[in-house]
């Protein structure tokens, strides 16, 4: 296996160019309904595609060149409203203890499942509220007990520093809105917030739509990623925005494989995996059937059927979750 810069450089240049084009269109057509599709598209590029860029560059797999991963990681972390230090460590834990209750800090489907909150996630309000509180708390120099658990002490000052950087940028955006309002710009005064920060609310729906499918309704407290993760076939536009994380079983089994190689990896190992969901709709049908049942039977989880040729899952080998050290 060889890693390359080419695919991620290409996709990042397209991503940046589309930010500029859609933002320019939204501003140019301001006051007309023609502006709406530009802002909607800008919102998804900013508020949803940031998640996959954050994820892949956090792993360090998108680019071969380290500084490129780091630059895009920091930009995407800001867009997705995540402290770049905290989330690097929480995601490492997520890969060590995927959907292990009490260990994995990134479990999206907490029980009992609150469907109302899940619906609100599509407009980002709850998540932005919660993430902003975390960012402000970190900026004030405070880390929660969980954060102190999964982030090494040597990294704590960095977490505080980056939280302060993010808060300072958001404060500058808020201030610019106020200045424009005071200078009589009317509704145009909100353009800075539509450009920076706002898309995390009005453009996050795509990130939520894809992210909820990753592990929802599947087994908790198992070590076999074929049982706690879901691979879903998706359309090319979604796969580009999502950087192929629809191949989620493959990603968890082989996290160092870059996004652009996941379709090829899928072809190589799919005979050993549960059949993928055939579409987003198919994935949601399966997910919600399982989640609705979990609301009645908290211990229930959808058990994915492995192909007859696959190495079987042996529950007795996974009965005990091993003790872990912190980190």
């Amino acid at each position: 296996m060889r890693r390359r810069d080419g695919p991620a450089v290409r996709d990042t240049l397209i991503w940046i160019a589309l930010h500029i084009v859609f933002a320019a269109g939204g501003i140019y057509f301001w006051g007309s309904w023609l502006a709406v599709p530009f802002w909607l598209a800008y919102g998804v590029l900013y508020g949803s595609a940031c998640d996959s860029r954050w994820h892949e560059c956090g792993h360090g797999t998108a680019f071969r060149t380290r500084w490129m991963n780091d630059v895009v990681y920091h930009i995407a972390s800001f867009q997705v409203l995540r402290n770049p230090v905290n989330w690097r460590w929480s995601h490492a834990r997520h890969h060590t203890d995927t959907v292990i209750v009490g260990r994995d800090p990134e479990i999206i489907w907490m029980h009992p499942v609150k469907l109302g909150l899940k619906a609100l996630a599509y407009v980002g309000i709850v998540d932005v509220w919660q993430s902003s509180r975390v960012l402000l708390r970190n900026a004030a120099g405070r880390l929660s007990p969980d954060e102190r658990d999964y982030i090494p002490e040597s990294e704590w000052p960095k977490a505080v520093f980056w939280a302060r950087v993010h808060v300072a940028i958001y404060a500058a955006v808020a201030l610019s809105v106020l200045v424009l309002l005071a200078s009589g710009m009317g509704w145009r005064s909100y353009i800075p917030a539509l450009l920076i920060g706002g898309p995390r609310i009005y453009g996050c729906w795509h990130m939520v739509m894809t992210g909820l499918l990753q592990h929802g309704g599947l087994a908790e407290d198992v070590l076999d990623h074929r049982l706690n993760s879901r691979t879903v076939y998706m359309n090319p536009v979604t796969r580009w925005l999502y950087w192929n994380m629809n191949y989620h079983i493959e990603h968890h089994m082989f996290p160092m494989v870059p996004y652009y190689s996941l379709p090829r990896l899928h072809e190589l190992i799919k005979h050993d995996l549960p059949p993928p969901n055939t579409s987003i709709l198919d994935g949601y049908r399966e997910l919600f059937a399982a989640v609705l049942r979990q609301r009645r039977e908290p211990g229930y989880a959808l058990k994915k059927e492995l192909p007859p040729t696959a190495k079987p899952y042996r529950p007795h080998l996974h009965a005990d979750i091993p003790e872990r050290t912190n980190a």
Partner: protein
Amino acid sequence: MPWIDACGADEIDREDVLGWDHGGRAFAIYHGVDGRFYCTDGLCSHEQVRLEEGLVMDFEIECPRHNGLFDYRTGAALRAPACDALATYPVKVEEGRVQVLIE
């Protein structure tokens, strides 16, 4: 301190790594892009994952589990979640065999 015979030099492609166990310990032996051989601890300093399953790029080894990155010439940790350096061991090649000096 004895030099320990580890493997044949032709067993590791250039820019690749081989796992080697000796005395109850895991080591990773690298064939560098400069043609020289190197040896480090075989387990990632983050969560004790075997490094020979990782990806060698130039003079760096990437842990297969969490993508921590090390310079295998010095053992230095280059990217989180790896923070602590790997120990490194002297290596020589004699008559086509890679030998490692282990204290």
